Structures are given as structure tokens and as C-alpha cells.
């Protein structure tokens, strides 16, 4: 028709062409080993599918960018529907069941997912254009972020509480959710150190390890129960937080990050090499499981005692313990969150935030920087200790391998991407960074790719983190409703 459309088409064709050239060796060709000889096979349907998706995706994006509503909306919805359709076909096994006619059109899970997600994004963008047509951008009133976040938080918490009761929730989902909640709790603990006090701690996993090993050793050596060990492990981790905090009091920013990174590795290497005490790389096995108010989750209770299923008169089901574990970490996470939200409004919490903003100004107001920093280290470490105890009791086994630097890195990523200091941001980031990769384990090869892509996108669009809104901890008058 007219030139902008022609330009869009040319642009989309160009992008698709470049993508085709780049993608051909990666997607179009497949090197497999049959016996000993490597053979080269082709995957033309996948390749063609990728190029087509890129062509229409680009077309949709450029149309949406130029403010069109209808065309990109239709394109986006079509892409999303196509992607979803092929996902369904693949999931239900229609593709593999011999009715080969479908098979040619199913270009693989990853591509379908990308097409589906991209289609939804384009349709969303276009839908906004469509609604905004004829309206001035200035008409948009700023959203009451505080209120919205509160409701989002309540909704997330409610969802988390109801999750195990929802239909269609299987063991695997509860397992993943438990893992995510562990990271949410760790993220909230680290948020005190990094988000509130502004101390970039790259060795947070050390305190997690201290908590896990404290519980493991106390449980195996003395046979103490989980509920006795939990506070002890938290206290020990807090003590380590203070011990490791002391030497780094004068460091800030990058220097602090490097030293804490070193401390994290030191703890792990000590655990690895102090064989007499920690059993070294073999780890500690047979760690006690927590009981439900004294009722163990055993299939066959010991003579004269009751276990959970006999007491409640239900059939033994191993999923009971999984659900109990889920609620246990949920409760621990809620405690962490409630504590953080409360302490933020206390003088110490405000001093942490002030310390993050300007340490020199803090000193000039009589805030003792040493005590303030150490308290942040200690309290952050304490929650890592609690989470570590939970980790040990959930796994029944700990070894130094679980406490590598990558864990610290993921935790810092969760806090930073979530938006420093934002509790809900941390929870959302934990779901995105831990939950999604864990749930989509089949897409293993693409996991890290998607992880990196997500990081780049967040850096481009939300450089301050997903949620950067900050509510003042105190107001002269009640917040406007």
C-alpha cells in the first residue's frame, strides 16, 4: 500500500533473513552420533518455523511501535495461539502418536514457547495502543503503587497458602514451590543486608551453610529435634555474621563484595576439608526430619508411638510430608517478611537505609556505623541460618557442594533484579529466576540462555529492578487511601 508498510515488510524480511543466516547452523543442522560416526541431519521444519516466527514477530513489533492497534493485535494473538497450539499438540502426544500430519507443524517446545510468549507480548503492546488511541498520554494518572503492591502481596500470599490444596497440583510442583520459597526466604534475608543496609554481600551462602551444618551436626550428634536446633542454628549463623562482618566494616561497594565472596568460599572450603568435623565431601547423612508437633511422618511408627497418618486416621501418603515441608518454609518465609517489614519502621531499620544512602551523613548524625552494619549482617545471617536448617532437614543430607558461589550469585541477582529493598520484588524475582528454570527443566539447553536474556531485558527496561517503589516508613499523616 503505502511506504511505511512497505518499509515494515522490508525491515521484517531483513531481520528474518539475518536470523535465518545465523540460525541455520544452530537450528537447521543437527550433529548426532550414531554408533561411532557423527552424522549430520537436518531440521528444516524447526528452522523454517523459527524464521517465520521472527518475520511475523518483527512485523508485529514494528507495527505496534508505530502506534498501530489492530494489525499487531491480530498478529500477536495469532502467534500466541499458534505457539500454544503446538505446545498443546506436543504435550498431549498427538504429534508423536504416528498421525504424522501434525508432526511437521510442531517445531519444538522452545520455539513454540518463544512464539507464544512473544505473541502475547506483542498483543499486549498492541492492545495498549488500541485502548490509548485518541487519548493523550498525559491523561494517565500515576498509579497508587503502594496500594497496588499491597494487594499484589496479599494475592501472592493467599495463592501460596492455598497452593497445595489447588486441583492439579502434583508433588513436583510442591517440590519446586518449596525450593522457590527457600530462595524467597533467603532473598528476604539478604535483602536486609543488600537492599536495606546497602552492603553488597556476595558470600551470603556461607551463613546458609552454617545454618545447615549446625542443624545437621546437632541433629546427628545429639539427636536434637528440628525445633530446638532452629534457633540454635539461627544464633550460630548470626554469630558468624558478626565475626565475618567485623573485618569488613571499613569496606564498601566492590571491595566489600570481593571480601565477602572470599569469606563465602572459605566457609565452603573449610567444610570440605575439615573431615573429622564435617565429614568433608561425603557430607552428613541421616539428618533428623521435623515432626508435626511431635508426630513424625513415618510410614511405620515405632512401637508405642503414633505417626502423623495414624493419629489423624488417614492413609499413609508421602506427600503429607512434602506439604508439611512446604508450609514450614512458607511460615518461615512469612516470619522473615513480617520481621523485615516491622524492623524497617524501627530506628535500626531507618538507620540501615540511611547507611545505604550516605554513610558520612549517618556519622554526622551520631549513628554508630559499626553497630548498625554488624546488626544488619547478624540479622541477615540469622535468617540464612534458619533457611539452612530447613534445607538440611528437607534434604536429609548436606554436603559442601550445595553451598557454592553460584548460590550467592543467584541470591544477589534475586535481590537486585527484584528491586533493592522491595519485598514483593524479591518474591517475584525468586519465582522468575528459580521457579521457572526449575519447572521448565526439560528445556535445559535453553535455560541459561533464557536466564541471560531475562537479565539483559531487565537491565534494559527496569535498570533499578522489577519493583522500585519505596513507601516511606513513617508519614506525617496517614497515607492517602
Amino acid at each position: 500500500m503505502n511506504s511505511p508498510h512497505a518499509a515494515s515488510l522490508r525491515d521484517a524480511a531483513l531481520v528474518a533473513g539475518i536470523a535465518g543466516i545465523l540460525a541455520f547452523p544452530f537450528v537447521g543442522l543437527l550433529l548426532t552420533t550414531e554408533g561411532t560416526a557423527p552424522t549430520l541431519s537436518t531440521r528444516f521444519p524447526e528452522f523454517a518455523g523459527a524464521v517465520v516466527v521472527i518475520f511475523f514477530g518483527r512485523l508485529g513489533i514494528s507495527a505496534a511501535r508505530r502506534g498501530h492497534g489492530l494489525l499487531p493485535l491480530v498478529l500477536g494473538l495469532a502467534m500466541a495461539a499458534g505457539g500454544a497450539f503446538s505446545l498443546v499438540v506436543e504435550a498431549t502426544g498427538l504429534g508423536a502418536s504416528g498421525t504424522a500430519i501434525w508432526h511437521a507443524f510442531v517445531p519444538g517446545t522452545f520455539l513454540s514457547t518463544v512464539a507464544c510468549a512473544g505473541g502475547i507480548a506483542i498483543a499486549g503492546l498492541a492492545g495498549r495502543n488500541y485502548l490509548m488511541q485518541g487519548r493523550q498520554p498525559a491523561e494517565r494518572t500515576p498509579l497508587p503503587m503502594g496500594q497496588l503492591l499491597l494487594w499484589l502481596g496479599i494475592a501472592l500470599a493467599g495463592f501460596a497458602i492455598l497452593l497445595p490444596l489447588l486441583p492439579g497440583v502434583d508433588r513436583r510442583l510442591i517440590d519446586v514451590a518449596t525450593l522457590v520459597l527457600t530462595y524467597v526466604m533467603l532473598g528476604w534475608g539478604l535483602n536486609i543486608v543488600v537492599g536495606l543496609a546497602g552492603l553488597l554481600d556476595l558470600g551470603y551462602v556461607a551463613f546458609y551453610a552454617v545454618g545447615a551444618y549446625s542443624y545437621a551436626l546437632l541433629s546427628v550428634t545429639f539427636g536434637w529435634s528440628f525445633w530446638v536446633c532452629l534457633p540454635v542454628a539461627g544464633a550460630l549463623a548470626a554469630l558468624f555474621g558478626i565475626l565475618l562482618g567485623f573485618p569488613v566494616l571499613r569496606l564498601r561497594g566492590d571491595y566489600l563484595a570481593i571480601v565477602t565472596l572470599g569469606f563465602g568460599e572459605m566457609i565452603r572450603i573449610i567444610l570440605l576439608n575439615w573431615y573429622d568435623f564435617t565429614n568433608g565431601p561425603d557430607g552428613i547423612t541421616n539428618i533428623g526430619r521435623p515432626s508435626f508437633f511431635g508426630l513424625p511422618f513415618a510410614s511405620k511408627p515405632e512401637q508405642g508411638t503414633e505417626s502423623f497418618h495414624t493419629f489423624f486416621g488417614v492413609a499413609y501418603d508421602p506427600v503429607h510430608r512434602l506439604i508439611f515441608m512446604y508450609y514450614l518454609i512458607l511460615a518461615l518465609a512469612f516470619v522473615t517478611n513480617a520481621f523485615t517489614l516491622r524492623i524497617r519502621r524501627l530506628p535500626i531499620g531507618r538507620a540501615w537505609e540511611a547507611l545505604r544512602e550516605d554513610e558520612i551523613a549517618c556519622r554526622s548524625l551520631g549513628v554508630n556505623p559499626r553497630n548498625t552494619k554488624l546488626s544488619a549482617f547478624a540479622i541477615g545471617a540469622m535468617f540464612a541460618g534458619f533457611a539452612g536448617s530447613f534445607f538440611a532437614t528437607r534434604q536429609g543430607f548436606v554436603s559442601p557442594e550445595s553451598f557454592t558461589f553460584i548460590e550467592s550469585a543467584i541470591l544477589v541477582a534475586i535481590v537486585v533484579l527484584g528491586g533493592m529493598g522491595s519485598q514483593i520484588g524479591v518474591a517475584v524475582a525468586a519465582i522468575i529466576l528459580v521457579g521457572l528454570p526449575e519447572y521448565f527443566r526439560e528445556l535445559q539447553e535453553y535455560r541459561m540462555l533464557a536466564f541471560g536474556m531475562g537479565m539483559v531485558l531487565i537491565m534494559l527496561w527496569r535498570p533499578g529492578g522489577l519493583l522500585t517503589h519505596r513507601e516511606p516508613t513513617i508519614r506525617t499523616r496517614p497515607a492517602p487511601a
Partner: protein
Amino acid sequence: MNPPTLLSVEHLTMRFGGLIAVDDVSFSVEQGAIHALIGPNGAGKTTVFNCLTGFYKPTVGRITLHSPESRTPFLLEQMDDYRIVREAKVVRTFQNIRTFPKMSVLENLMVAQHNHLMRASGWTFLGLIGAPSFRHAEAESVERAEYWIGRTGLAEYADTEAGALPYGEQRRLEIARAMCCDPVLLCLDEPAAGLNPSETEELSELIGYIRDHHHISVLLIEHDMSMVMGVSDHIVVLDYGQKIAEGAPETVRNDPAVVQAYLGSDDEDEAGESEDTTS
């Protein structure tokens, strides 16, 4: 006859390697008076401030504070910066503004009352359980903060992020915040820098109000001569780290050494090297 001495600085010397930033300076500050410390750029004014408030440890010298709230004098040169604020109650502001930009104005003023509130919150434990005594103390602190918010004309910004405030308001916020620390001596480092004449006028009034109604001594570094001459009771002039003159504004204004320091030699200009960045 003279009012009692609040602060006495004796033989204060500060060396940075081979550079002598402050060279054997002695002066004193009277209770309930406004003293000004003036001098060309690089004269060592901010260095004196940094020594007074514990940010630097002086090479030589004694700084004694005879606080009306304490029987024994404080030897400031031996105290850490935050203890000087907490115990001796000498509070400073900064030449380059140092607010907590992401915190609201009220929060800024609450941080200034940190030590008082920490005690009231039972080192956080009473605060966590929401003890009534803590709530009461917190409400009092908010009241005090609101008083200074009103006094410095920041009422409409009370719940705004400090970083979003206009420049002049940020300067006043720093003074309000310092006042919330309940000082006996308030040290203002170029509070009028970057303010327009009417804002400077308001600032002079504020400083006078602080002296007259709260009986707090003020030590002031300032370049705006009309303001210094108008507001000060006593002026100390530094040049090249040495005290070259001292006295009432009239005396200092006509002192030949001062005139020479400001106008005399040709190697000094406004854009010269400054100690400003050292604060």
C-alpha cells in the same frame, strides 16, 4: 562579663603529608553566639570543621567543648565522629549537600534522632513488640521533626523524597536534620552556597532564630560576606591555614590583613584550588 566559653580550639594543626592545611590555629566560641569562619578558598576552613566534628584527627592541638549539659569537658580531638554528635552534641552540615535522597524528609529527620529512639526502642527489642513507651517516644520524635519541618518551611515536602526537593529546600533540610540531633553547637559549612538573595535572607533569619530561641551556638563557614557580616557576632579569618584576624564584624572588615587576603595578591581567584572537595 563575657558569656562562658563553649568551645576552645588551641594550637590546632592538620598536616596531610607535606601539606599544612591548618597551622596552629586557636580560637574560641562563646555560648549562645554566632561565630563565623571565613577566608579565601583553600584557607583550611572545612579542615577545621572536619577536625571539630571528628572526621579528621588533628595532627596537633586540643579541642575542648564545655558543654552546658555535662560537668566534665569533652576533648573532641580524641572522640570518634559519631560519638561527638551523640555525646558532645556538636553537629555539622555539609558544603555539598548530604541528605538521604531516597528517604522522605520526615525520615531524614527521624534518622537524626536515632540514638534517642534506639534507647527508646530498647535496642529494637521493645520496638519489635510495639511497646507503648516506644510508640510514645516515636510520636514525640515525629513532633519534634514536624516542628523543624515547619520552622524551615518544608511542610509541603514532609513526605517527599529528599532527593526530589529543590536545592534551597535541601539546604534547609540539612539544617532541620542537624537541629533534630539536639545540638549545643551547630556547625554550618557554607549554608548559603547556591542560594539566591531572598533565600539567603531567610537563612540568616533561621540562624538568628536558632541562636535566640534555642540558645544554640552556631559556627559558620560562609563566603557570602553580606550574610556573614549581618548575622555573625564574631568572625575568625583564615588564610593559608593560619588565623590572620579575629573580632567583631566591623573590626574584621577593616583589618588590612583581611583586605589583603581577599583582594591583595594576584594569585588568588575564585576558581582556585579549593579544600571544598575534602569534606
